[in-house]
């Protein structure tokens, strides 16, 4: 069994505020860098944009690992349960909405604010699913703690 030599203290609110601030700064830097460096045309611009987004994602992943190591086993269980049941449920609900829109293209159910290019449509679909997943995840997470308090 892997047991730490001495009890570690779970992250407190200050740690989360710090992580939020670091995430905002990191995202801002990646956005600024992408705006300046990714403005170049052709493969170089695409590569630089991908590099900046990759750096932001790597930073986000490192933050997630730090956060995961700082929460205790019940908190981890809540997140695992919520991601599976809430995330999956949210994704299923989102798929119903997206598939309905996809199979009924002539009804003009989609607002033009989402954009009309293939990239806009792809991004809107992807983000819609993510938002449905996150909504389900948040509800399931809150439900887990309400049930276990």
């Amino acid at each position: 069994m892997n047991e730490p030599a001495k009890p570690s203290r779970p992250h407190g609110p200050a740690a989360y505020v710090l992580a939020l601030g670091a995430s905002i700064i990191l995202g801002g830097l990646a956005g600024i860098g992408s705006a300046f460096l990714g403005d170049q045309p052709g493969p170089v611009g695409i590569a630089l944009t991908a590099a900046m987004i990759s750096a932001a994602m790597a930073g986000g992943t490192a933050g997630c690992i730090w956060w995961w190591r700082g929460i205790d086993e019940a908190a981890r269980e809540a997140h695992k349960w919520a991601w599976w049941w809430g995330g999956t449920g949210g994704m299923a609900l989102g798929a119903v909405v997206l598939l309905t829109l996809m199979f009924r293209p002539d009804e003009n159910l989609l607002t033009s604010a989402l954009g009309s290019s293939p990239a806009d449509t792809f991004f809107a679909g992807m983000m819609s699913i993510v938002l449905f997943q996150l909504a389900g995840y948040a509800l399931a997470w809150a439900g887990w703690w309400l049930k276990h308090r």
Partner: protein
Amino acid sequence: MNNRLKVLRAERNWSQADLAEQLGVSRQTVNALETGRYDPSLPLAFKIARVFGHPIESIFTED
């Protein structure tokens, strides 16, 4: 699973936060353990046993 965590903690006049500090978990987790709504992992169960100085089977019992 049933447990005697609340009784053992009360005998020592520890708050949930005190026990949480010794176990390296959050107070919410201690509360979930005490109410029997969350069963600990084996490493945490061993740690609880060590903190209270009792064998695991005297702290946790089957329903």
